[in-house]
């Protein structure tokens, strides 16, 4: 059975793409990249005219309202991320355990599991905006893209979903989700773009399966 169990091990979207360590310039890294794994993700699309009611249900269950503009609303166990008109991604901190929640929401929303569909990473550091400026066609100045703002856009011909987190001790912080199949090309762009600043990479499985 041990053999079987091992053979059914999940394989992260990041597997074979990036390892922990430093890339690019040596010395103090200008950017820190944390590869995220183990979160749960589902698309919710409200029925015509049903967005407010859906939001109320979500709020009652999770304590977060569904944003009606491109934002992320963080919650204790789940974050709600706007992903189109009347459409959201519900991100759970762990892969398992959202089944009954999603089941109950499916009365009010079209629910589609996307837990395996995206690779995600968190970026921070003093040079993070300079790295992102090499691919993101959006103004990420805090005056234009505040903490909690989210955007669906593209980087280097690759669709991304990104949002701004509260600033960390090392400066501004962002999370980016990218289609799983394209994460290799995304990483090629990222590694080239971050190289001049030096980038420290770590992997965070703490929220998911270990």
């Amino acid at each position, binding site marked *: 059975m041990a053999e*079987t169990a091992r*053979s*059914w*091990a*999940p*394989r*992260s*979207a990041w*597997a*074979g793409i990036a390892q922990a360590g430093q890339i*690019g*310039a040596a010395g103090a890294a200008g950017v820190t990249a944390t590869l995220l794994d183990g979160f749960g993700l589902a*698309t919710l*699309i409200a*029925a*015509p005219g049903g967005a407010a009611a859906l939001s109320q249900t979500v709020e009652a269950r999770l304590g977060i309202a569904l944003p009606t503009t491109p934002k992320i609303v963080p919650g204790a166990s789940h974050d709600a991320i706007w992903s189109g008109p009347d*459409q959201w991604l519900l991100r759970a901190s762990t892969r398992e355990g959202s089944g009954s929640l999603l089941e109950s929401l499916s009365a009010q929303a*079209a629910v*589609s*599991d*996307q*837990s*395996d*569909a*995206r690779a995600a990473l968190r970026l921070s550091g003093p040079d993070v905006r300079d790295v992102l*400026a*090499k*691919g*993101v*066609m*959006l*103004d990420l*100045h805090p*005056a*234009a893209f505040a903490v909690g703002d989210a955007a669906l856009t593209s980087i*280097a*011909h*690759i669709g991304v979903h990104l949002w701004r987190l509260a600033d960390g001790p090392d400066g501004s912080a962002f999370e980016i989700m990218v*289609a*799983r*199949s*394209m994460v*290799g*090309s*995304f990483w*090629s*762009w990222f590694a*080239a*773009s971050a*190289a*001049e600043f030096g980038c420290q990479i770590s992997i965070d499985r703490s929220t998911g399966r270990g």
Partner: protein
Amino acid sequence: MSTQPFRLASGGLIDRGHPLDFSFDGASYRGYAGDTLASALLANGVRLVGRSFKYHRPRGILSAGPEEPNALVELRSGARREPNTRATVVELFGGLEAASQNRWPSLAFDLLSINGLISPALVAGFYYKTFMWPASFWEKLYEPLIRRAAGLGRAAGAEDPDHYEKAFAFCDLLVIGGGPAGLSAALAAGRSGARVILCDEDFRLGGRLLAEQREIDGKPASEWLAATLAELTSLPEVRIMPRTTVFGLYDHGIYGAVERVADHLPQPPAHQPRQRGWRIHARRAILAAGALERPIVFAGNDRPGVMLAGAVRSYVNRHGVLPGRETVLFTAGDDGWTTARDIAAAGGKVAAIVDSRPADPVRKALADKLGARLFAGGAVTGARGGRQLSGVTIRDASGAVSELSCDLLAVSNGWNPTLHLTSHQNGKPAWDESLQCFVPGTVPAGLTVAGSAAGRFTLAQALEDGARLGRDAATEVGLTTLPAEPTPTTDPETNGLSPVWRVSGGKGKAFVDYQNDVTDKDVELAAREGFRPVEHLKRYITLGMATDQGKTSNLSGLAIMAEQTGRTIPQTGTTTFRPPYTPVAIGALAGHHRGKDFRPIRLAPTHDWSKEQGAIFVESGPWLRAQYYPRSGETDWLTTVNREVKAVRAGVGLCDVSTLGKIDIQGADAAEFLERVYINGWKALPVGKARYGLMLREDGFVMDDGTTSRLGETHFLMTTTTANAGKVMQHLEFCHQVLWPELDVRMVSVSEQWAQVAIAGPKARETLRGVVDREHDLSNEAFPYLAARAVTVGGGIPARLFRISFSGELAYELAVPADYGDATVRALMQAGAPFGITPYGTEALGVMRIEKGHVAGNELNGQTTARDLGLGKMMSSKKDFVGRLMAGRQALVEPDRPAFVGFKPVDPSQRLRAGAHFIDIGKPGVMENDEGYMTSVAYSPHLDHWMGLGLIKGGAARVGERVRAYDPVRNGDVVVEICSPVFVDPEGARLHG
């Protein structure tokens, strides 16, 4: 080599403590940090730097900036060689290598200078009038000669070893130009808290202040410059970008710029790009790009040693180089006198001043003070010297002619505003009669123009404009500005000018466009032959078409044309400029996107597993897919593919099909929606079942196909072809949002969520049995053909199982969450091991679909109808659907449209090839006999011969007939027999097993 005979002992913005060694045409020289290549060459007394385009005349350095038409060199060597590089803007670095171009065997002795002797025949456009007989000689003889002689530098050709980046910036205000106007503008806006980006093409900020001896507020301008830069640097929202050229203005306030990150170094440091291409989004922009000085057209005006007067000041004041021992100044205005003054101040000798304007006592006194002869109302009519200027001919106001020797002729004829960006949005400059130059006319929204770029040429005006427009921009973007500070005062300046468009009466060629060797006589010829509209003029005589884009020539050409046709300059035309302002390296605009990074690569969740298995991968749209899995000993792909196909048909195989588009479609009207987008019916499809669907474009041709499954009453999962996944999603969104927003239908792509694997072959069920959890009954009765249901695998992992088949075998597609894709193929391999399970790739997939006569990308080519493909019967007549009416048009239902059938070679040993056309046997291969074409072919290991699918007139009615598969481009001409497109198991017994 350390002697720099023309270097001044002191002064200038060079660092004499930081010598830099470099080479030109193999000879070694030394310059200083702060030099340009041009200033360093001049310091070393190098005058001859290039040969002209057509006549191969010796050329020197004319300017000190981006307008340089003559001093073009090949910079660096090997794969880093950069042709046509303007020596006047190259920042000197240690180890720099440069070479002259367009000469053979050497710069000093150039054989093609013989063109100068036959030059009387080589007038503008001579080639339009000759080289026509005999016709075949053009490609064989004339053109190769012309091509070899044409062009200037040699491109490296080999792969550029450096890398490039793109970047995107946003600001309240973009200031273009870091001279006094631009700096004032940036400061005024920056002090209000505006987000400012200040770009300057130079490596040092200051613009003309660097080249002039000026005072601001009673102190040397350098102090004002230092203080201003210090304050700008202290402002957190101000970004200063030297070595950055804003090259173009595009719609909605987007500016293109190129940052030369490492061009001032021998090669880019580790992790740094050579250049970075920027898209700058600016709410407001101020063009403060200054002005470009104009030469004068006179005979011999291209001799090395003839230089713009303002450039002379740059070399003297900025670079500490006196470009000549004995100077004559030819000026049409006050500005040139400053050059004489600065040369004298630097200890140089001004032999004579030729001022085209009438005598004036103040100027006379000034000339006397400088110790220079003054020729008031005079003109330089000729310049002597071969590789270096040796003297000039001067005609005075009385018409008397003098010969003077000199080695530098400084020429001053007023300045043209650098208004290029204002014309990038089709804006037309306006002629200013009092200034005698074009000034910005219609200016794009969001852009204002300051200082010299607006024709406001004095330093005082530059400072005033910058401060005012900077404040205005800050106000316009909603910022509160501080009270205006008083404009700094400047030392007095005068601007008198009476431009000289050309000096007649000289001997020899008088150049209008140096780089393209266009002379005043060429302009006259254009006038004579009717090429009078300014665009005809430019195109006919190639005026302004060289790498300098006519920065020093367009106005002279226009003025001479005006003179020829008795019109004014504005009546004759305007000078407009296309982007880019100066040439931009292709690499900088491509950035990261070259080689494998040209476009993103999509990889399936099983990719690494396939790699382990030794798969050969193939580009399939954006995806890389496993094409086949060679085993050791298999030397050609066909052997491998045959093995894979046989293994599937005899036992079981597996193939990744994750690349198919997968769209989750939910909502109360989901079934109704499918009715409208597919040609066939969907409302009656039971839950838990899949169905093949075909959709048309609105013009009636086939768009895509795939299976769609009903997962719930109001829940469908559509699959699309790999190639059309994005297109179909967009189409469905169009149908929903634009055509039928009243329907409750909610769609999202789930392509990335699921890894999908096809398991095919008689042992497919048994293999699956080892993977799908026991509680799911997979028997034929419980899970029949076209069943589509949720199952679990690996002890509770949610999955979806579809009993669908592309191969015609008993087959399933198993979808699992992508993280489990890898584990699933490994589990399947383990479960199928007893049956010899074999991974197969797209080639084997293709063979089996052809054996079964399924259509795929080669048939769904946008030119075929459902009827053409034998799928016409699927079209429901009971409902409206996209494409229904247009599919019924006369030409789409004609019986003789080529229709879908199979083909087999009459001689089974012969190979078939897709793309062959069908011709009746015995008829010649001409277009009238074209009956259709082969869409797909494969070798069938099952039949042991090649087989093909294709479209032929008459279609199925002709089964049994023989035709030629005509393939002249591959020397293939095969007799084939028309047959059913289903080559294997036509009854479908295997499918239902």
